[in-house]
């Protein structure tokens, strides 16, 4: 009898298999897609403390859509894009890309991260703030505020930077320097002259916004 139970179970499994058939069932839409897949790296609601992956919550919709398309057509080609996003983006339809962008843009942004505490951090924060607001014209670095907004909130195809993890911001500045983002010609020019200390200061300031 018990043997029959196992056999019956296996037959049920086979039946489910056969029933489902080989036809393509539409993939889950956002936010189900966001909850089931994107969440593993980008956190619940697109908010994460991971330094490896960005928070997406509150990001500009146009920017999110452009990046998803850039992953899909491989024009965004930095190492982590190839490792993690090329595959995922390849499964998604145009409508799914749009719905993900809309969903994450509507989520409340990650709260500002811990502000500078030690005197050294406070000094770095102040330097980062100055660089963000005024740039360094002598070395050809424009003020970030000019494009990213007074609160680094982003606009249109220009991304939000406020509250983003400092390690991710530093990683992306390195990516721009390496010309691994097709849409990054302007940023490559800005990131190029930045010293490692300036990258550190800027990222520290932005994550605390």
């Amino acid at each position, binding site marked *: 009898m018990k043997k029959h139970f*196992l056999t019956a179970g296996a037959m049920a*499994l086979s039946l489910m298999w056969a029933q489902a058939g080989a036809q393509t069932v539409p993939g889950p839409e956002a936010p*189900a897609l966001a909850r089931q*897949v994107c969440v593993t*790296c980008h956190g619940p609601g697109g908010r994460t403390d991971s330094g490896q992956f960005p928070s997406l919550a509150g990001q500009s919709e146009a920017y999110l859509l452009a990046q998803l398309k850039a992953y899909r057509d491989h024009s965004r080609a930095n190492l982590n894009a190839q*490792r993690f996003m090329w595959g995922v983006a390849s499964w998604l339809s145009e409508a799914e890309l749009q719905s993900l962008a809309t969903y994450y843009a509507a989520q409340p942004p990650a709260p500002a991260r811990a502000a500078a505490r030690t005197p050294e951090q406070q000094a770095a924060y102040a330097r980062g703030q100055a660089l963000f607001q005024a740039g360094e014209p002598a070395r050809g670095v424009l003020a970030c505020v000019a494009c990213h907004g007074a609160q680094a909130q982003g606009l249109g195809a220009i991304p939000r930077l406020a509250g983003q993890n400092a390690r991710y911001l530093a990683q992306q500045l390195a990516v721009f320097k390496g010309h691994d983002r097709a849409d990054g010609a302007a940023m490559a020019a800005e990131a190029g002259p930045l010293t490692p200390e300036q990258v550190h200061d800027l990222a520290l300031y932005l994550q605390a916004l």
Partner: protein
Amino acid sequence: MPNRHPHALIRFCLMAWGLVMCALLAAPAQAVPAFARQTGENCVACHTAFPELTPFGREFKLNGYTWGERAAVPLAVMMQASLTQLAQSQDAGGRTLMPHEGDLQFDRLSVFAAGKINDHVGGYTQWAYNNNRTMGQDGGTVGHAGIHDFDLRAIQRLRLGGKDLVLGFNLNNNPTLQDVWNSTPVWRGIPFTGSNLPRPQAMGSMLLDGGLGQKVVGLGAYAWWDRQWYGELSTYGSAVNTWRVLSTGVSLDSMNRLRGYNNPYWRLAWNREWGAHSLMLGHYGMVADKYPNPGTPHGDTDRFTDLGLDAQYQVLSDPSIFSLQGSLGHERQNLRASFARGAASHPDNHLQALRLKASYLYERTYGASLAYVDVRGSRDAGLYGRVRDSATGAPVSDRPDTRSLIAELDYNLNPQMRLMLQYTGYLKWNGATANIDGRGRKPSDNNTLFLGLWFLF
């Protein structure tokens, strides 16, 4: 024979070079096994260093391997080659305890069929040719071909209490093969792989620690709720008759046989992920009625009750990945059948095993691991007292206790190819800290140096 070693090393290097060239010639981003081709993801999306899973990899497995597009040819190949050195490969009488010592060995060739069938069903199976399964009469080894893994899933995604729920059915041929954390028996990397050559083996091993692999069929149901709670209940029986395909290659004469198909396995785990961190605390267990004689599935049975506590902690960041795994297993052995036949001295025994491992991986390329394994159990002269002192005739030990430390260095040439150097040092062997074979052999004489190459495409 020491004079063979330099040539073996040269051959090993040549083979390594050949495989490196194969890897370099393969397509760069897609030259990974079937699941990577299906999802378009790089290996590192699902694995820190294979087979250890990332949160994304765990989710992929629990979702029945159904993400991505079904591949036209869902096949993958794995090859393993190695060199093994024993600290002391001959006993006091000059008998060689391990064939092919210091020889380059092409250990194993595996073929995988793996992938989604549709958006609700997926799985994989591994078939392997093992070049060195047993020691042959001529002092060499005898190869063996057969099934290794089988894992078929059917899943449904639902909502419960406003949270996501994945419900799944699973059919497999090895309890814990279906698990997604690397602290349960099949997938724990403590260590995950080692020398394949027949050599002295410690006696203390729980039934769940490999005793049922490729010998059983299990059907179960699992629930994964809110990416936080995992619960599973499965039932196992011997993979014979209808299910014989799941034990292909295993001789019925040597197969551990269970009574009936109602031997339960269960699993409960709490999982939490935050930022770069993930933590799992879990419990697993099984109750199995096993016939004492592998070839004779009749009469009374022994009952094994295995209970385990396990934990895993991972920090996945760039460029460093750090992971800790630990498990504490306890097996209650009701050996009523073995005792009645005189094979055991006591009707009730127990065995327990503590395993701890810490790993560090830098830039997903350079890895180091340190592990500790401590197996101990109750005295039983019938089970463990067969080795006798050559001078006095007294049993050397009547305990299964074995303790070892394992250190491993890894170099991942790319996500599909790993070169590993592993050293296992024994502090205790089958209950003895000296004279483990009755002829003066020390536990440390079994210390093993293993140089392995692992290649998948």
